């Protein structure tokens, strides 16, 4: 399929988003839009390894944390947080290499549990290290200007989040059409068959894992500069990893637009819950998210976008087209 409709849609989103970012003065909605694009970026990053490659991770927040902590350390040391962009990305990539090399060959729940264990180890490590602020985390000093990645309005933050999302979306579009993308989907559909035609599972999955870890780290840098506060529960705890996975699953794993749709649902729900039930921390938000995951898993396991794609295919009567979600199913 031609990438053109996707590019047009993305361009429209970027134009509308930019107009909104610099046109609106409504801080509450701008905050929601910032969160939307930040989470869509994280969801897409997760989608690379868990959607396209099929290794479901419950530990993706550690890469987000790499970026957030890099930004906090840089700013507190009087260095520009722009330095945290390569630094955070590099640390995240290294962490992905070190943890991915042994674990990516694991399948199914073995990998998922390993990501929980790795996430918990990273969380524990940060909580016991003085230079990482122990359990208390860091506040970031208030500066101003593009050089410090801090702005008095929310508009520029929204624009940056939008830019990051667009970048990751373009990368994903390229992934879908690249050798790497085809290999990952082949490995996901049937790893034994893929291996038998010479696809090196560890090598290609490591490339995907390392790349998507850097996307999450970039989102982390932006997040830290936006909230000016970084601590383990807000950046690398299991609950953040769960949110990221939730966004990917709800939208539809292994689809280009799934993460954006999932993030929209997530942000709208978070707002509704806060409005009607008095914020998170009381468990109502968890009840709703949990119920949504359950419903999707049981009745629409391909997520919102995946279900739409399947329905479109069925209407076209393309019996010979293999389902995106599970090529083995159609075989």
């Amino acid at each position: 399929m031609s990438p053109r409709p996707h590019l047009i849609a993305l361009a429209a989103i970027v134009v509308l988003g930019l107009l909104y970012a610099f046109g609106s003065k409504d801080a509450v909605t701008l905050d929601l839009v910032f969160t939307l694009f930040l989470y869509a970026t994280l969801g897409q990053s997760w989608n690379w390894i868990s959607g396209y490659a099929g290794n479901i991770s419950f530990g993706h927040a550690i890469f987000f944390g790499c970026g957030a902590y890099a930004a906090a350390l840089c700013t507190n040391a009087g260095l520009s947080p722009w330095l945290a962009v390569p630094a955070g990305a590099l640390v995240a990539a290294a962490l992905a290499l070190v943890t991915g090399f042994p674990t990516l060959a694991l399948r199914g729940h073995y990998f998922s549990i390993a990501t929980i264990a790795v996430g918990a180890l990273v969380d524990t490590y940060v909580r016991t290290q003085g230079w990482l602020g122990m359990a208390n985390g860091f506040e970031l000093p208030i500066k101003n200007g593009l050089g410090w990645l801090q702005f008095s309005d929310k508009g520029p933050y929204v624009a940056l989040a939008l830019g990051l999302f667009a970048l990751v979306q373009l990368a994903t579009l390229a992934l879908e059409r690249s050798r790497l993308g085809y290999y990952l989907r082949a490995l996901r559909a049937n790893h034994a068959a893929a291996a038998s035609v010479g696809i090196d599972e560890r090598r290609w999955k490591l490339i995907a894992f390392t790349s998507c870890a850097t996307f999450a780290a970039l989102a982390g840098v932006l997040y830290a500069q936006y909230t000016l506060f970084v601590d383990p529960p807000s950046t690398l705890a299991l609950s953040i990893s769960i949110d990221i996975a939730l966004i990917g699953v709800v939208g539809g794993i292994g689809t280009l637009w799934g993460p954006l749709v999932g993030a929209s649902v997530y942000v709208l729900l978070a707002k509704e819950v806060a409005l009607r039930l008095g914020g998170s921390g009381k468990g109502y938000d968890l009840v709703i998210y949990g119920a949504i995951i359950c419903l999707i898993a049981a009745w629409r396991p391909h997520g919102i976008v995946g279900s739409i794609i399947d329905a479109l295919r069925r209407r076209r009567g393309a019996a010979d087209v293999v389902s995106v979600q599970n090529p083995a199913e159609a075989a």
Partner: protein
Amino acid sequence: MADAAVEALTTFALLVAGGLLTGLVFALVALGLTLVYGVMDVVNFAHGEFLMLAMYATLGLALLGIGPLVGLPLVAAALFLFGIVVYRIFIRRLLAGPPEATVFGTFGLLVLIQGAAQALFSSDYLSVPNRPLQGTLHLGPIALAQSALVEGAGALVLTALVFAFVEYTETGRAMRAVAEDRVAATLMGINVQRINALAFGIGAACVGAAGALLMLSYPVYPTVGSQFALTAFVVVALGGFGSIQGALVAALLVGLLEVLGGFYLSPELKMVPVYLAYLVVVLLRPQGLLGRR
């Protein structure tokens, strides 16, 4: 000098005893998980939340004047029914979907139950009033909490009972047949849906009983299940997914690692050796210590 050595040895013996007793409770929790996995290839990520529900149920009974030990069979029976209902309306649907649906689905169940507990019971730590068995038992220089002894012994007996059920009864044999080959079992006239539901119910009953025992010494709060579930995942992977004997051996090992790690490293690092053990085992021996593949 000699005194210091004796003291260090006594401490070590105390820790080992404590670790083994903790391990026996882990074994009962992990048993439910490994049974469900063995029969239907589902890792129930909400297993710890079932445990949490059982602990709240035990607390509720205690507030009505029914102590944890008397309440144990009631809680186990309630969880058994709960497990069957969850299987019938939810897990069965997941099994019909793509393989990752069971991972997401049971994970969603975890989030849902945990949120509901937070909404209903708040995040406070709650304990059974007038806990029984608060004394200690002295074996020479070693003093053990009576509650820990009863928890360990109770868990051991129940684990043995479930093992005997799976090993020696007709239904248990049917369960093992389904675990071995679902299609062949169906052809032999075994109702796989019924066996699945039963296995899920028994798995839930195991944490039902474990929850009642744990209320002898633990408080309950909405996220209490997570730490036990994580430990149970590690135990089940260590022992080999689906292996009951493996789970028992691994649980004792993990209990020891956790208690010794908590003492000799530091309390906040007590899970580190456990997670490292998981990673090392799944990488070097993916089938687990006693697992088959």
